Structures are given as C-alpha cells and as structure tokens.
C-alpha cells in the first residue's frame, strides 16, 4: 500500500474514526501499533526481509541501551561501521557490483534509509544521555510508525515520546478536523495531479531534447527544452515530496502523533545553508547535528586556530555523504558535492563581508531588498542546476547538459 492511494485514505478515515473512540492510552498505543504493523505487512515482501529488518532494529536498540549505561565512543563507532556496511549491502549500492553475491540477496526494506537516520540519532543521543526512558516497545513503535516509515519526516525520538505519552487526536473540533483532512487531500492532489503533471511534462521534454540532440541542433532549438527540464524537475520534486509530507503530517495528527514540518517555502531560500533549513528540513537538521557539527568539533579541537577554514571541508564531506544517502549511483555524490560547494560559498561570502565591512554591515546587507531578491533567484537556480543530477544515472543526467554545450559551440 502506498501513502496517498485510495485504500490508504479510506483506511486512514476508518482508523481515525475508531481511534477517537478508544478509551485508554494503552489501547490507543496498541491500536496505532496494529495500524503500523498492518502497513508494514504490505511493504515487506519475504521472510528474509523481515529477519533483516528485525536484526537492524533490535541491534540498534540493544546498542543504544548499552551506550546509555556505558557511554563509549569505540562501541558507537564499531557498531556504526557494522550498521553502515549492512545498510550498503541491503540498499545494494552499485560499487558492490564487484561482489555479485551481495547484490543478489533477496531483501527489500522500504524506508531503510530513514530508519538508519533515526537509529544513528537514538544511538548518539543515548550515549550523550539525551534519549531517556528507551524501551523496546517505544523504540519499535518509533522506528516503524506508519507515517514516518517510508519517507520521513525524520522525527526525533524525544518528540515522538511526547506524542506517545498522550496519543490523543491533535485536531479538536469540526473546523480543525476539516482543516487537517483538507491538508491531507491537498497533499494527494499535489502528488497525484500537480506533481504527476510536472513529471509527465519533464519526461516529455527530456525525450524531446534527447531526440533533438541526436542531430546538430542550434541553440534556439535546444534552449526551450533545456529550460523546461531545468524548471520542471524542481517543481515536480517539491509538489511530490511536500504533498507526501502533507499527507503523513495530517494523518499522524489524526492518530495523535505530532510530526515536524519538512518544508517552509524552500524556493524562497536566500542561500544553500538557508535552503536546507526549509527543504526536507528534518534531513537538513540531521546533517547539521549528526554529520557537520561532530566533524567540525573534531577538527576544531585538533587545531582551534584554523578551525574556521576547516568548516568548508566539513560542509563538503557532510553534503557528499548526504548526497550519497539519496541513492546508490554516482550522480547523487555529484548532487551532494554541488551542495557542499554552495554551502561553502555561502559561508565564504559571509566571512568576506564580515572581514571587509564588519558584522553590523552584514545585518544591514541582509535587510537590503534587492540583495534578498537576487539571493533568492541565485539560490533557486543553483538548486535547479544541482537537481539536474537527480533523476538517474550520471550519463542520463549529463545528456541534456552535453546537448546544450554542443549547441553553444559555433
């Protein structure tokens, strides 16, 4: 079953109506657990996948409990190495093609990437004493919650615990209920009609451009199709993913879970760092908290005098890893690399302004209206460029750029 399908909506309607009738917290928890288990049942294809999923989650829980009792960086790293190795195998990363046996394992776990994020967060927070009262029942429900299972948002365990402690429907009253359902339904329209329309137009434009590119086209012939590609895919991604988030955030609220917002007007961001606090923001915050900050801390402690300059390297590493997380092909590494460059350039420009004009000027600068408009336009086009590397293998992504470059030559 997929989020946004007719059966999902019908079952959500039924489940939310029944949920509001369940009298006690214990029964409401059991009810939500049954719903999550039922949803999971439709996604896991075979026994091997169930076993792999159980091992993935139970090992994470056991190590988190150990780290809570005996905080040890060595234990954390040892487990992370094993966990990441298992993740790479289960996600069938293409570089594992050297070991065909690994790629032939018949295991499919939907949402494994998001489980990995949640698992690492709980492990680190347990070691730091920030994830408290971790029980197996709570942890399984957190990891396998049907609303965050397949594609996020990446909810923090502490936030889940707050909802889990009460588990009462969040929208109260006829208007709030209607508003929540309206959000869910608009989410479906975003995915099924608007996003699907953009994807259809993108696919047609891509095919047409490739067809034109097989000859010797002029720039005037190539440019309109390239521009269409350039803008259509970002529009598709936004409609598709924000629509999905509308459905799950609304649906979770009906069953008492408050999920974090994942999109706040991302295409009005004024730089790449700002962008990642607005687009898939739970991933952006995860990258900041569990990749960038720890990396930066380590290098800054080694050499505090030049710590600031290391920040640029940390941006690159954090974004390349985040890029590679998106998929097993090299185009995602390029996508991450471009964003690492964008984040570093943002920081470099800010540092330059502070050094040459002082910090008070930076505040003034950020308030200038035309600067804001230019910054938003530049960031939007930077993102649209980076997303050219998103739709598939590198050769497929580079084909439109190659055709454009060829057409530019006299």
């Amino acid at each position, binding site marked *: *079953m*997929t*989020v*946004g*399908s*007719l059966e999902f*909506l019908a079952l959500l309607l039924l489940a939310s109506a029944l949920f509001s009738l369940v009298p006690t917290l214990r029964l409401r928890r059991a009810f939500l657990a049954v719903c999550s288990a039922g949803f999971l049942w439709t996604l896991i294809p075979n026994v091997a996948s169930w076993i792999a999923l159980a091992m993935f989650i139970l090992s994470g829980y056991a190590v988190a409990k150990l780290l809570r009792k005996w905080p040890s960086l060595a234990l954390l790293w040892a487990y992370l190495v094993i966990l990441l190795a298992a993740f790479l195998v289960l996600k069938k990363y293409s570089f594992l093609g050297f070991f065909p046996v690994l790629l032939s394992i018949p295991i499919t776990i*939907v*949402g494994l*990437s998001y489980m990995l994020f949640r698992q690492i967060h709980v492990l680190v927070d347990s070691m730091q004493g920030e994830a408290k009262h971790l029980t197996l029942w709570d942890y399984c429900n957190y990891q396998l919650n049907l609303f965050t299972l*397949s*594609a*996020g948002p990446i909810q923090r365990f502490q936030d889940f615990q707050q909802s889990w402690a009460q588990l009462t429907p969040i929208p109260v*009253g*006829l*208007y709030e209920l*209607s*508003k929540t*359902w*309206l959000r869910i*339904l*608009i989410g*479906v*329209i975003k*995915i*099924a*009609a608007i*996003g*699907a329309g953009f994807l259809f137009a993108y696919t047609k434009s891509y095919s047409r451009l490739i067809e034109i590119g097989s000859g010797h086209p002029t720039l005037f012939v190539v440019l309109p199709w390239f521009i269409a590609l350039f803008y259509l895919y970002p529009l*598709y*991604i936004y409609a*598709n*993913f924000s629509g*999905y988030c509308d459905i799950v955030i609304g649906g979770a609220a009906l069953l008492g879970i408050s999920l974090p917002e994942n999109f706040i007007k991302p295409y009005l961001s004024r730089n790449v760092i700002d962008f990642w606090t607005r687009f*898939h923001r739970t991933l952006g915050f995860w990258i900041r908290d569990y990749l960038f900050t720890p990396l930066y801390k380590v290098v800054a402690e080694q050499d505090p005098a030049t710590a600031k300059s290391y920040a640029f390297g940390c941006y690159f590493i954090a974004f390349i890893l985040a890029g590679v*997380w*998106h*998929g097993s092909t090299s185009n995602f590494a390029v996508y991450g690399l471009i964003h690492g460059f964008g984040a570093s350039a943002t920081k470099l420009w800010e540092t330059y302004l502070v050094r040459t004009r002082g910090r008070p000027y930076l505040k003034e600068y950020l308030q200038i209206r035309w600067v804001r408009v230019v910054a938003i336009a530049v960031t939007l086009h930077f993102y649209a460029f980076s997303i050219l590397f998103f739709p598939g293998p590198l050769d497929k992504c580079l084909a439109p750029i190659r055709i454009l470059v060829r057409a530019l030559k006299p």
Partner: protein
Amino acid sequence: MNKIDDFGRRHPRLALALTMAVAVVVTLILLGQSQAPVVLYRAF
C-alpha cells in the same frame, strides 16, 4: 492564515463542506489513474 482560521472557526460546517468537495475531486483523480501515486523519496 489567521483570518481564514477565524472564518473557518465561525463557519465549521462550511469548512466541512469544502473538505467533502475536495475529497470528491481527489477520489475522481485517484480513480482516473492507472496506478497509485508514486512518492519519489520513498525510493531513497
């Protein structure tokens, strides 16, 4: 948004009617499609 919320709270049945109308549109859209909506980020 606050103004819409105020209006909606004063006329909750109107909000419900709007929601029902959108639900009909969504049902028609989904019935008209050959496959369930695909969420891109599910693949990651």
